[in-house]
Every structure is written in structure tokens, then in C-alpha cells.
């Protein structure tokens, strides 16, 4: 049985701190909730859009 391997891999990546933690959190939530791919993609898009808006505000 390898059911929780994905979670294990994601947690390993997160603990290394080399990658974007917020993105990894989205993937972890997606794995835990068994989200559809489009829900996950949408969540990631929202994060990127939000970050872009913030970066524009900061510039302004």
C-alpha cells in the first residue's frame, strides 16, 4: 500500500524549504481533499493573480 506516499513526498519538499511553500500547501490540500485538477489549478491561479496584484500595488 502506497496511499500516503504523495503526502510524504510533499511534506519532505516543504520541510526542505527550497520551494514555494504556499504552492506546496495547495498541492497538499489537493491531495488530502482529493480535489479535482481544475480546483487545484484554479487555487494556484488565484494565488498568482493575487501576488501580481500585490506587486502592482507595491510599485504604485
Amino acid at each position, binding site marked *: 500500500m502506497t496511499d500516503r506516499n504523495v503526502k510524504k513526498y510533499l511534506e519532505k519538499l516543504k520541510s526542505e524549504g527550497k520551494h*514555494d511553500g504556499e504552492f506546496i500547501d495547495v498541492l497538499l490540500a489537493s491531495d488530502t481533499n482529493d480535489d*479535482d485538477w481544475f480546483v487545484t*489549478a484554479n487555487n494556484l491561479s488565484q494565488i*498568482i493573480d493575487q501576488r501580481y496584484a500585490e506587486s502592482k500595488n507595491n510599485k504604485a
Partner: protein
Amino acid sequence: MLKVKTIKLSGFRGIKTPQELFCIKAGETKPTSFVLFGVNSSGKTSFMDGLEWFLSPENKIQWLRREDAQEAAYPHNSAQPGESYVEIEFFEDSKTIRLRKTFDDNRKTKPILSDNDEFQRIYQSFVIKPYFRYLEIVEFVLNRTGVQKYQELARWMGFESELNFQEKLAKVVSQLEKKKELIETRRDDTLKAIGQLLENTVVDETSILTYCNKLLKGISSEINGAILEPLTSKESLQKCLPNIAKLQIQTSHAKNLNILSSAQTDLSAFAINKSLIDQITSLKNERDKFVGKQKSTNNINSIDLYNKAQEILSNNDKEKTKCPVCGLEWNRRNLLEHIKEELNLLDQINLKKTELIQKVEKALHLIRREQTLTAQTIAKYQEIESVISPLKYDVIKQYGSILTEFEYSMAGDIFSTGWKLSIPDTKIFDKLESEISQIIKFINEEKAKLEPSKEVLLLDSTIQSLRKTNELWDKLIQEKEEHDFWAAEVSKFLEIGDTIGELIRNGIKNLFDEISSLIEEYFVILRKDKDIKNIKIDFNVTKKAEGRSAEIQLSYYDVNVKPAYKILSESLLNSLGLSVYFACVRKFNKECGFIVLDDIINSLDIQHRETIINLLEDKFSDFQVILFTHDDLWFERLQTRFPHWVRKKIKKWEYDTGPRIDFANTTKEELDLMLGEDETKAKEAGMKFGEYLEGVLHELCEKLEAKIKYRYYKQDLPVMNELFEAGCERLKDILGDQHDLVAKMKNAWQNDPLIRNFCMHDRRNYASSISLTEVKNSYQKWFNEVENNLRCTECHKIIEYVKAKEQVHLQCEKGHLKLK
């Protein structure tokens, strides 16, 4: 490990009345392996379907889905609600668990489970499903692409969650890439639009500024001598635009056009109060009526006097008294009434007067508003006259005079007798509207006549181009920023995707490597006749589904082959498919101790079918095998090799009830039964023994590598003389003429009357007058003197020819029985 004691089906597929298979021998407590023989369409597949449905967490029978049959096809046609079920008794750690799955006619996809928790425990006991059909082997090895194989392996090896995540990740990445590309396309469209404007394929700050400066240079010498500074940045373009717009306004043509356009807009919005004259007329009538009651109105000033009188009289209690206002003598009570009436009348008059004054004020307000409007319109006409030829606007002037007269009258004392007001004809309003319409029309005509100068045209187009450039440049900067931001973020996510993808692939590769050696080990048992080694499941290198496609590769006579189906025959591929399945069962099904196999020998050639028995015996002796077959020869072999198995056969199948199942016996057991006391069975027993003997001789000759005389003519009788001759000769060659077994075999061939008959006559015809005793003697002699010496009592296999280290000898495959 979990094993199966009984399988009971009712009202399911081809089984109507309850049928039960007992995988346990009488008097024993632990279940054992089980084989059910039945010709095609005898109902054994119904048992397989029932088992699959029972063991499927999704409550599905896969092969029926391929046939497009859904859950409604599961119950027997005439089964009543609640009658369709599968019940299995499991055995584990000396405990028996009985579970039932009942078809629910109201919810066909959701059967009723007798114990949900126990069912979940059963489902979790296996990774690869513990049932396998011939068709699935064919599908796996032949009809599956690399991606489909990988998906099947995920189900077989238990890495479905990883596969699902891999697929999800691939779709998420693709979606993010698409969004990035969308932003990129928008940016490229803007770039293209700027390029078209610039008429230049290179679009950057320099090329845009060069284009803008060229435009500015064209107009700077033309407009009022103004000198425009060259643009050096995006900001300078932004700042320059309002200044140029000012220049545009300063041109005479533009000025004139502006005056006319502005006038046109204002005149179109001109709205006179057409009810003004009616309102004034009504007010005048009311005033005239009020003033007509002169006496009353004059007395209004006496109100205070009457009030005082009323106060005095209230304090005086004399019966007769003089009126303090007029001096006449009144009865006091009547006088009070009189004063009250007078006061009421005067109050009403006063109220009306106040109302009239308010109306006058309101009228004055309206008149003055109209006066302002009229004055503005006349001023607008005069402004227009500065651009185009004189206008004619007498009506509005006349309306202005009327308004002045109205104002004068209303501002005076309207209650005085000398007050005057003349009311004009209301047609003045129609005339006013007509005059304005004509002037607007005239303006339009004049506007059309105005020819713009070259300089104006150039300025207009330059401003338009600069504005457009500025607008597109703003858009491009924003889209570039957005694209770059998205690209960086997606790249960050891709790094995560790649790393997690690699971790998953490494994990699965380890599984592949672990299973690959086991596959090879099993394959060698199934096909030791072929030089196939280095069997390995590996990822396919593919762009489309990188890391989600797998193939089997191997070395075939030292040639590397990938995928395996490129070069292997169908039979070899089926052996490979079986090896993969069995390896997965061994590797991953740690808690589930049974396998259900349906007609899997179909996938192998006749001469290799026994190798499956070898595999089951060598590698799965700790497993309980539940096997269904329609092949009588294989069944016979299974019975001979696994005499301890529970053996059953389906005698017949009836629509109303389903299959009728009975115990199955080996030929020897059947002959023993036939040769009891019933003389009528002699012929049948003789025939059966003949067929059996022929089969054993065939197998013996094959194992001894004996040379059998070739049958040349079709009319040669089907006798077994050649088999005996070849077998005896070969035994004599290897063991020597004096060996006891050679002598006994020769004796049976040449001296036993029944066997001599088999060898001399057509076996379809013999034994017509044979007695029960003759058959009994022959078969007992054969078994006791010959076959018991040829067949190993432990592995139940016939001896075979072995050549090792220059020495030749005969032994069973396992070496338990050796003949010298």
C-alpha cells in the same frame, strides 16, 4: 492469510436457485484449493462474475462493462427482489466470517452489504484484485498502450494514488501553462498592433520613440510656430499629449467648429416652458375675480379691530350693547355671532390673498428662468453669427419682450385697480421651436461647408497616432509585466512539479525493479523452452505522458526487445502477462491468501499448460487457488497433479435453476466406481480406460523423447500400438532390456488382452463384448505394475528423460522418483 471456505450464489447471472461451492473437504476445518470444470455455457462464469462483483469495491463486473452490460444485467432474469446475492464464507486465523452482498433492485449500483466494516477489511486485504480472467491477460499484453499498461500496473501494484496525483499534476501544469500562454498571446497581439502602427517588425522603446518623434517633427513647423521637444521616454510622450491637444484647439478651423458644435448641442437642449402663458392667464383670472369683491378685500384690514371687539364683548355681560366698530346697538349675543361671521369671512379672504401672492411669486420665478434661457440663446445666436453669415431670430426677441412685460406686471401691485396684463397668443411657442430648428439645420449645413486645412488634418492624424501609440504602449507594458510575473511563478511551480514527479517516479521505479526479478522467475517456470531473460518493467520515454507510461522489456536470445510485444509470439506474451499478474499477487497481496482464476490456460499452447500447474505448485502452495476451466484435459491434469484439491464439475445447466454440480473424480476413481457391480458399465469403462491409457502413453513418449512412427495414411486405424512400441523401445534403450519396468510394460502391451485389443483395433470400436472383470483386471494391472512406477507419488508427475554430466537417467521433474 484470508481464505475462502464457501461461495454461495443466488439469483445471480445464470444461477437462479442458490448454489454453493464448498472449498473444504469433508471432515476438515481449513479450506483448500478448488477446481470447477464445466463445458462452455454451463454456468461457471456466473460463479466468476459473482466473485468479481463480491470482491469489487466498486461493485462492478469489468468484462460485462466491456460488453456494454450494466448492473441491471447482474441478477438472474426471474429472480425476485432480494433473491440476488453472493455470500462468501472466509476463513482467517481459525475464524470463519460470513459476508453477503445483496443486489438492491432500487439502487442497482449500491448493493446491500451484510457488514460494511468487514467488507472494507476484505477489500483492503488485497492490492491486486485476487481474480483474473483469460481476457485480461490478452488485454494487458496485447491491447494496451504504454499509458494503459502503466494504469493497469498502478491498479495491480497499488500505486493508483501516485498515478492519480501524476495525472492531476500534469493537468494542473498544462492549465497554468495555458493561462501563461493566453497572457503571452495578448502581449504578442499588442506587439503586433504596435508593429503595424510603426510599420516596423522591431518593437522596443527606441523604435516607438523614433516613430513618435517623426510624427512630431512633421507638425512642429506647421502649428503656430510652436516648437515641440523631441520625446526621450514613455513619460515624455505621456506629458506631450495634452500640449498637442491644446494646439489642436487653437487652430481657427477647430475654433469655428467648436463654436458651431457647442451651439448646436446647446440649442438641441433648449426647452421652453410651453405652459407659461396658460399659467399666467389662469393667475390673471383668479386675480380679477378676487379683486372684483372690492368691499371684502378692503375690510381685511379690520380683522384686528374685530378681534379686539370680540375680546371686549367677551368681558361684558349686558344684554344690549353698542358695536365697538360700527356704533349700532345690538343684542349682545347676536353681536357676538355677527363679529364671528365677519371674522370668518375676512380670514377666508385673507387666505385667498396670500395664496394669490404665492402664485405670483412662483410665476415670477418661471418668467425669470425663461428670461435667462432666452438671453443665453440670443447670446449663442450672436456667437454663431461671428462664424457664419447673420441669422434671423425675431421670434425669440419677441418672446423676450413678452417675458419683460410679464415680469413688469407681476412685480407690481396686482391688487391695485390700475393693474394691467396683456396675454399673448400661445402660438408663439410653435414659432419659437420652428425658429430654433431652422437655425440648427442651418448650422449643420454650414459645418459641412467648413473645409479643414492640411495642417489641421495632419495635426488630427498625428494626435490620433500618438494617442494610439501611447495607449498601446501602456497596454504592452502592463501585459509584459503580467506575463513576466506569471512566467516566473509558473516556473516556480514547475520546479515543484518536476521534483515531486521525480520522487514519485523513483518510488514506482523501485517497485518495478522489485517486481521485475519475480516476473522473470515465474516466466522461466512457464516457458523454460525459450531463452528469455532480463525481464524488466520500465518507464517509456515519451513526451506526451512522461513518467506515466510503462512497457516490459527483455532479452530474447540476447537481443534486447522493448516493448516485448514487438517480437514475442502471442503465447509468449500471454505467459508474460500471467507472470506479471502472479508476481504482483505474490509481492503485494500479503493478507489475501486466495486467487480466483478463470480459464487462464486458454492463453497458453496445449504443451505449455502444465507449466501453470508447475507454477502454482512451486510458488503458490501457500495460496488457495480457486480455478474454473472448460478444458477437460487440463482438468484431468489438475486432478492428477493436485489430488488433494476439492474437485467439482458442472454436470448440466438448466435455465430455471442454473448449473448442477457434482464431485469430480480422476479416471481411476471413475473406473473404480464404474466397475463396481454393474455389468452394463463394462463397455463404457473399457472406452474410458482406453482414452486414458492413450493420454498417458502420449505424455510418456513426450517426456522420454521417444520416436513415434509417423502415420502416413489417413486410413490407418487410430490404434495405440505405435505409442507402446515407441515407449517400450525408449525405456529399453535407457534402462536396459532387463529392467523390471521394461518387462512389465512390454508384458502389458503384448499379453494383456484388453490392451492388446487397444493396440490392434480401432479404439472407437473395441470392447464390444468385453466383460467387467476383463476391464478391471487390465486397468488394475496397468496401474499397479506400470503407471505407479512411471508416476511420482509426491509430485504426481510422469518420469522424464534427463541428460546431465554425460549421464542419462529417468526421473520426475523434482527428482523424487529416479529410475536407473
